[in-house]
């Protein structure tokens, strides 16, 4: 009998002895203080608010109450692997539960690739405490993590691990491939109606058989139907006055005076000549997740007791609960939110819209109501990555080293999104720098003097977080400029990066060296033959590192074909390599999409996209072969892995420059666009 089998048997025996089961409580991890919670980043919950992470049930089943939302990033399987490692049991013994808002205390939003970084250790500790408790044969029904010392087996990785460091497919994969209900829109309740809320000011359509017009308690109007067909025939296009779209032009902004927010403020000589003086622009971009927003709401009333129950795919179930409680004058415990698996998050599920619509409709219907946004609603009523405009000026010394770096940029808001903030708060936030716009704006390169500054500009189209926040646009600008500097210095772009990265970023250098080996990069191939190879690298949130090489071909009509992409990423200890690779595959394709197609059309200050024909995203024929390697120095803690590779955008544009001799300064790339 193996040691682990013995352990399993012991677990089961103990569980069976304790009729009430065992629950392990731990404090929720702290997170960064957010002065203005436009998006609800939460602080440390009060000490008495303990999260139940693990439940060992009397029948021997072990439940992990997931303190995160699952949107395909694989956090369910990753945390499950950690629990199994600590308890030395089979993965199958652990059941992952997406808990409703009554089952755990509030935890922060599932955003920013934070889940493994913040939750691996507390979940490991809870499991380890349970293990030690069972070993002692303790009879307690509750275990509280009070910071007592406990040995963690899972977070050092290594050969001894059975589960950590092993590839496993995403949670519920068998249900996914057989079409079992998993997502909010799959919810079906007896007597359920279907509804939509008309945009404010929109005239209800002419009466259609089966459609009932209703007045909602927030003053809006809605439509109800006993089947969904007629609702999807309703057009969301509405005649409205044009809105002025502020010019997002960094040069005009810099001429108007000083940009508002400083990230680095060294005194650069602004009068002397520059080695490089280049403008970069990025457009609006949509999340375009394949699952359009959906929610089901149901009201319960027994006497004076009113309860609202909601099913939704959200990155923050507690924000949904609080928003609905406030809207309807309920205490938070009267609102129960059931989070469902999310059919694509990417930042899109961070505010409360369809949940409120379903609750308003269900309120007047007196029956459960399902709201299913159309694709047009996703584009027109959703929120989007703001456009950005960059000016990068740099000066080199005789050896090609950067003496002066001046990056000024402007962008619509990301974190302080108008989509989730009342106008007064929008006014206040113009005084505070938007950390989402700033993400990734500090280059990893050494420069004697560095000035990085920006202005965020309030736009009439709702903007907000999109995969990587500012990292994609800023990475595009910085890594394009670095590539040009290498050319101006007459150096190979990969060697140039190695020579000019700040010495503290050894881990990024290791990624660059390794990706050069992987791709066989000795020096950048000369231009010609319709082939180009480009490189880019970047750091996400000071803790995750990636280097990307892209090989592209240029067709006779100038169109770009991705041939192969290579990525080496260091996100510290990897719990599940397959899931991290999957995240990187997504990043590489998102980076490619930024170059190839993605530009959300805006007309008269409004989104003018209604279908995927108006906003094409990459299809399978755009997907190149991909080689990924994960590296990490021994002992490195797990870091976020889901957004680092967005810097791939610049590997592609640098490859286009290598192939054509034309620098890409405006996204998406068009063979006809000026350089």
């Amino acid at each position, binding site marked *: 009998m193996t040691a682990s089998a013995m352990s399993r048997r012991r677990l089961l025996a103990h569980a069976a002895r304790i009729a009430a089961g065992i629950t392990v409580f731990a404090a929720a991890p702290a997170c960064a203080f957010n002065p203005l919670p436009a998006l609800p980043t939460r602080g440390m919950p009060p000490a008495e608010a303990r999260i139940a992470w693990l439940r060992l049930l009397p029948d021997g089943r072990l439940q992990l109450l997931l303190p995160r939302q699952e*949107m*395909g990033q694989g956090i369910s399987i990753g945390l499950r692997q950690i629990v199994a490692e600590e308890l030395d049991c089979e993965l199958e013994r652990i059941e992952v539960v997406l808990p409703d808002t009554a089952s755990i205390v509030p935890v922060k939003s599932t955003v920013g690739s934070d889940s493994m970084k913040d939750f691996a250790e507390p979940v490991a500790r809870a499991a380890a405490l349970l293990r030690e408790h069972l070993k002692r044969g303790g009879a307690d029904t509750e275990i509280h993590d009070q910071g007592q010392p406990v040995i963690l087996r899972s977070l050092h990785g290594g050969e001894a691990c059975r589960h950590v460091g092993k*590839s*496993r*497919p*995403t949670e519920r*994969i*068998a249900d*996914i*491939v*057989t*079409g*079992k*209900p*998993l*997502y909010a*829109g*799959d919810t*079906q309740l007896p007597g359920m109606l*279907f509804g939509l809320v008309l945009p404010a000011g929109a005239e209800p359509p002419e009466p259609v*058989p*089966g459609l009932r017009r209703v007045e909602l308690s927030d003053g809006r109007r809605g439509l109800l139907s006993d*089947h*969904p*067909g*007629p609702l*999807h025939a309703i057009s969301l296009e509405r005649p409205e006055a044009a809105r002025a779209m502020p010019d997002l032009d960094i040069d005009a902004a810099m001429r108007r005076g000083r940009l508002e927010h400083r990230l680095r403020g060294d005194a650069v000589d602004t009068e002397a000549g520059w080695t490089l003086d280049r403008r970069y622009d990025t457009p609006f971009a949509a*999340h*375009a*997740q*394949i*699952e*359009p927003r959906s929610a089901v709401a149901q009201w319960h009333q027994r006497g004076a007791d009113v309860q609202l129950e909601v099913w939704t795919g959200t990155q923050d179930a507690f924000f949904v609960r609080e928003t609905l409680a406030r809207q309807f004058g309920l205490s938070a415990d009267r609102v129960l939110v059931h989070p469902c*698996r*999310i*059919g*694509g*998050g990417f930042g899109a599920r961070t505010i409360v819209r369809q949940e409120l619509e379903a609750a308003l409709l269900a309120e007047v219907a007196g029956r459960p109501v399902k709201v*299913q946004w*159309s*694709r047009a609603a996703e584009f027109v009523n959703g929120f989007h990555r703001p456009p950005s405009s960059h000016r990068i000026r740099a000066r080199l010394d005789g050896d090609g080293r950067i003496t002066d770096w001046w990056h000024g940029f402007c962008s619509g808001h990301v974190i302080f999104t108008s989509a989730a903030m009342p106008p007064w708060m929008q006014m206040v936030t113009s005084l505070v720098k938007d950390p989402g716009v700033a993400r990734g704006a500090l280059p990893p390169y050494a420069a004697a003097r560095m000035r990085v500054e920006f202005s965020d500009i309030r736009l009439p189209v709702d903007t907000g977080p999109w995969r990587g926040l500012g990292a994609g646009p800023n990475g595009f600008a910085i890594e394009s400029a670095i590539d040009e500097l290498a050319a101006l210095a007459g150096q190979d772009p990969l060697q140039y990066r190695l020579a000019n990265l700040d010495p503290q970023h050894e881990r990024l250098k290791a990624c660059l060296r390794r990706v050069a080996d992987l791709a066989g990069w000795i020096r950048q191939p000369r231009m010609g033959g319709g082939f180009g190879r480009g490189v880019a690298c970047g750091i996400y949130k000071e803790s995750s590192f990636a280097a990307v090489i892209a090989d592209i071909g240029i067709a006779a009509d100038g169109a770009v074909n991705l041939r192969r992409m290579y990525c080496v990423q260091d996100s510290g200890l990897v719990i599940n390599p*397959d899931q991290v690779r*999957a995240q990187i*595959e*997504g*990043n*590489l*394709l998102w980076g490619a999409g930024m170059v190839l197609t993605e530009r959300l059309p805006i007309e008269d200050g409004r989104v003018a996209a209604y*279908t*995927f*024909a108006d906003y094409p*995203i*990459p*299809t*399978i*024929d*755009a*997907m190149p*072969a*991909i080689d990924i390697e994960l590296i990490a120095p021994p002992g490195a803690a797990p870091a976020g892995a889901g957004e680092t590779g967005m810097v791939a955008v610049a590997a592609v544009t640098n490859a286009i420059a290598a192939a054509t001799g034309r620098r890409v300064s405006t996204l998406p790339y068009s063979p006809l666009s000026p350089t």
Partner: protein
Amino acid sequence: MQITVNGRPAEIPDPLADDPLLWILRETLGLTGTKFGCGQGLCGACTVHMDGVAVRSCQVRTADAAGHEIATIEGLAAGDALHPLQQAWIAESVPQCGYCQAGQIMAAAALLRHTPQPDDAAIDAAMAGNLCRCGTYQRIRKAIHRAAGQQP
């Protein structure tokens, strides 16, 4: 009105005859494995088979499905035995969020029916109408090769 879904007849109330088949499958018959993604036939999430051919169920009038064999993701496995594509999808760990994958698998099943040994170009041509935002395309190719008995 009667339609046949996964080999079983289903009564559909006449007033729903003009509704897209997608909504009848999901909300009348409770077969929610077929997903809504765009309602315009541009994303492939709602792909089902009509007489073995992949169609976008959001673009099929329910009345026009009468007299044809409709197959959805729920009918792809033979009892407990998963279809080779479903097995391959698990072996290649294809899904991330998973939302588009039922449509992807149904499109792939239709492809393998007429092209049992597809190369990458044939896969790309057949699957280019099925969008995945998570970026699982490389794994989709590998899984289709695996199900076709080829080296993934």
